[in-house]
């Protein structure tokens, strides 16, 4: 199975490198293409294609998710930013991390490549994780950068609203329109066709459900933790006007976190019974 002659189980060192390079090149190319299309900006909210989500999703679902996600994140930075002379420095690190985590989760979550439903759910969750983490990072930046953020009325709310609008826009565009819709069309076409070109066996069933759940839990924990941290921070230094602020802002934010947790719970419950079948009756490659 590990020999270099026949198809291996996506485990060989050179296969991993191939997946990395492939993902890097393709995602970078997609990023360059999206740079060509100008964004229509209204204030800080832009209507444009941030990146071609489907390239990352397809590769992550067809191949080893770890290396495909790493490759996509590196390709985004190297091709899209560094080579175009548009590199943001430290700000890019956060982008790399969120993209990597989101795509990796998507790749681990997908169970059955023959089921459009499974692909769609995994893709949407993955891109949503990426967007939520990215938005959170932006909020943290403002929180660090502005002294006494809470003391200024209206500012925290407006930042959160702007981030929320921007993230949901990007999620709809990158995650759905150029995300899962092309993925659903292209994955069945590519499945079983592209793997022999790299000398690997087509993927069957899930990679490791445990790891996906674990990662999801970690990222949700980060999200909820950050939210709670903010809310508790509010609660401790309660001033004259602060309780009002918690009612409006904190409570609402916690509800968002809980809604996301509930959605994830439902998805995992929905997907659970299917996975056993996949393992019991693997389809012949």
């Amino acid at each position, binding site marked *: 199975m590990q020999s270099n002659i026949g198809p291996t189980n996506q485990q060989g060192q050179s296969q991993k490198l191939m997946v990395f390079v492939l993902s890097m090149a393709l995602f970078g*190319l997609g990023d360059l293409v999206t740079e060509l299309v100008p964004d229509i900006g209204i204030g800080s909210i832009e209507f444009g294609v941030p990146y071609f989500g*489907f390239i990352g999703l397809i590769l992550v679902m067809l191949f080893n998710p770890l290396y495909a996600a790493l490759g996509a994140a590196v*390709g985004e930075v*190297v091709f899209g930013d560094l*080579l175009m002379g548009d590199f943001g*420095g430290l700000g890019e690190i956060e982008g790399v991390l969120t993209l990597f985590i989101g795509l990796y989760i998507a790749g681990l979550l997908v169970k059955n490549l023959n089921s459009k439903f499974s692909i769609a759910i995994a893709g949407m969750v993955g891109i949503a994780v990426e967007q939520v983490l990215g938005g959170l990072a932006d909020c943290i930046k403002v929180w660090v950068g502005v002294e006494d953020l809470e003391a200024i009325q209206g500012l925290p709310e407006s930042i959160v609203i*702007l981030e929320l609008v921007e993230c949901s826009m990007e999620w709809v565009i990158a995650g759905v329109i150029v995300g899962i819709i092309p993925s659903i069309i292209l994955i069945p076409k590519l499945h079983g066709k592209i793997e022999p*070109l790299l000398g690997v066996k087509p993927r069957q069933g899930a990679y490791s459900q445990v790891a996906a759940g674990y990662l999801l839990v970690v990222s949700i924990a980060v999200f909820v933790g950050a939210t709670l941290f903010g809310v508790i921070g509010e609660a401790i230094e309660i001033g004259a006007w602060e309780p009002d602020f918690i009612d409006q802002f904190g409570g609402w934010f916690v509800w968002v976190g809980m809604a996301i947790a509930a959605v994830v719970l439902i998805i995992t419950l929905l997907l659970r019974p299917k996975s056993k079948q996949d393992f019991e009756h693997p389809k012949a490659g």
Partner: protein
Amino acid sequence: MNYIEKLLTNVSIDSLKLTLLRTAYVKKGSFLAQFDPRIVILWYSIFAILPWFVHNTTVLLLFFFTMVIIASLSRISGFILVMLSFTTFCNLISIIVLTFFLGGDIEAFLAILTLTLKLVTVALASVAVFASLDPEKFSDALLSFGLPGQVSFGVSYGYRMIPILIEEYHQIINSYRLRGRIPKKKGFLRWRQLFYMGKIAVLAFYPMILNTAKRTRTTVEALEVKGFTYALNHPEAKKLKLSYLKVRTKDIVLLASTCLFLSISFYIGSIYPL
């Protein structure tokens, strides 16, 4: 209408290729390029992290003006500067409008102004550094900081392969356009034509993915024959690759003057706080 017309016809992949080649191969003799890349990254990280934790406007203003000087020494393209100032301005306006809408006052405006000052300072530092650093040198510096070799490989690979990949993508798009037919009905705001172009741009990735997979296998097998993974895991090979990076006197001068500048600006900031 004119805008969309332009978008459909003038989005030229050739100009993209040109930009890439320019970044990759044009020799840069700017101020920061003469220093050791590792020192420049160190210098950059000071100015990328520090402003976030400074709440003294005088110090921030001093940082900002220094960055303006260094950025102008680095000969950044005017286009990048215009884009930078435009997006900053738009962000500023939209946040302020929303804040006032939610019941903020002049206090919020000042806070946002300080935040914008920080953002612009950091952005100017990034532009100055990464417009003047040769990407290959930059990736070697990252390698010497202990980042995985794949990243540095990615940069070199990008140089060599991206023009080829773009050309191939362009050909695929053109062949799709030759075989297909652009919708006759334009639709509202030409959405039919835009949709058609978008569909082609996405579908062209199907042959592209397969072709790139073949190409990748060849590349990686060639790399492995030359011992790429072996070299990644062995410190001697890395040492040999990075042997040209040397810290010289002028690098130390740069760091020392930065420290001096920092202490002076904090001193001024404590005397004349704004």
